[in-house]
């Protein structure tokens, strides 16, 4: 209930005296650098992150297969000697 002598705070201009500054619910810039990046450009970087997860996941897998092949090559060399 608004008393007649009270003045509605002016929130159209953000001066240091506005009541809006005292309101804890007002979102403030507390985003860390990662969130700032991810939410910029209409969140396009989220798609980049997803693509990179898949890319590095598959690269990691290919490297594991490669390591297995390398082990096989070494075993083969031990058994029948290096390829001439």
């Amino acid at each position: 209930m608004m008393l007649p002598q009270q003045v509605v705070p002016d929130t159209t201009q953000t001066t240091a005296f506005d009541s809006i500054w005292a309101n804890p619910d007002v979102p403030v810039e507390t985003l860390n650098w990662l969130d700032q990046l991810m939410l910029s450009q209409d969140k396009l970087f989220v798609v980049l992150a997803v693509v990179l997860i898949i890319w590095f996941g598959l690269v990691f897998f290919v490297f594991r297969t490669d390591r297995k092949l390398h082990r096989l090559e070494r075993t083969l060399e031990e058994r029948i000697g290096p390829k001439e």
Partner: protein
Amino acid sequence: MEADTSAVNVPLYRKVRAVVVVWMTLMILGAFSFGGLWLNIPRINILEHTARNLYFHVPMWFTMMAATVVSVNHSLRYLKSGHLIRDTRAREAALLAVVFGLLGLATGSTWAHYTWYEGSDLWWNFDPKQSMAAVQVLIYGAYFVLRSALDDPEKRARIAAVYNLFAFVTVPFLLYVLPRQLESLHPGAEGNPAFSEITHPIMRLVFYPAVVGFIGLFWVLYTQRVRTALLQERLDALDMPDL
């Protein structure tokens, strides 16, 4: 081991590999085309450009399902024929299923963090479909735990094949039926179609090729693994010439 069942069709593999590389390149270009060029996607609040994750996150699950189909197919054929090559193929396909499942979980979690859970610190909030998918990956993870517990190749192959049948039976329920019965943030929950009216038809133009492309990529990686495993088995056989 019969020659016709053990050989990998290398010329076919090379052809598929070349097609997959070109196909995936075009798919990624299609996925990132915007700015009035072509395949412009509609703007949706909160989702914004992350709608493009439809082309990357969702095919992970389609690919995982394809991998489980390949895996159970070879497990069944192992139980019928007793050829160990079938066990090898089932094992490698199941491994790829786990890989794509983990990628699906990681990409989904990232996507959710910046859309569903935007403004919070949440990466994971036990959305039914997430949880079921995680359980599904664990079921396939247990397949490898089971394998590692058994030493005799024949016995291991047989028990793993039977387990794989049970694991496969859970796939449609955990990834398809149950999430649709529960309240979920995922599209397709509570009996809705997964492609709702907010999914613009133009997105299907990239989405379906993406599914095909990722399944092709799975097939390439799977064939590499099978070739490596066959080489391993031939080397192991050299150690035991009398067997």
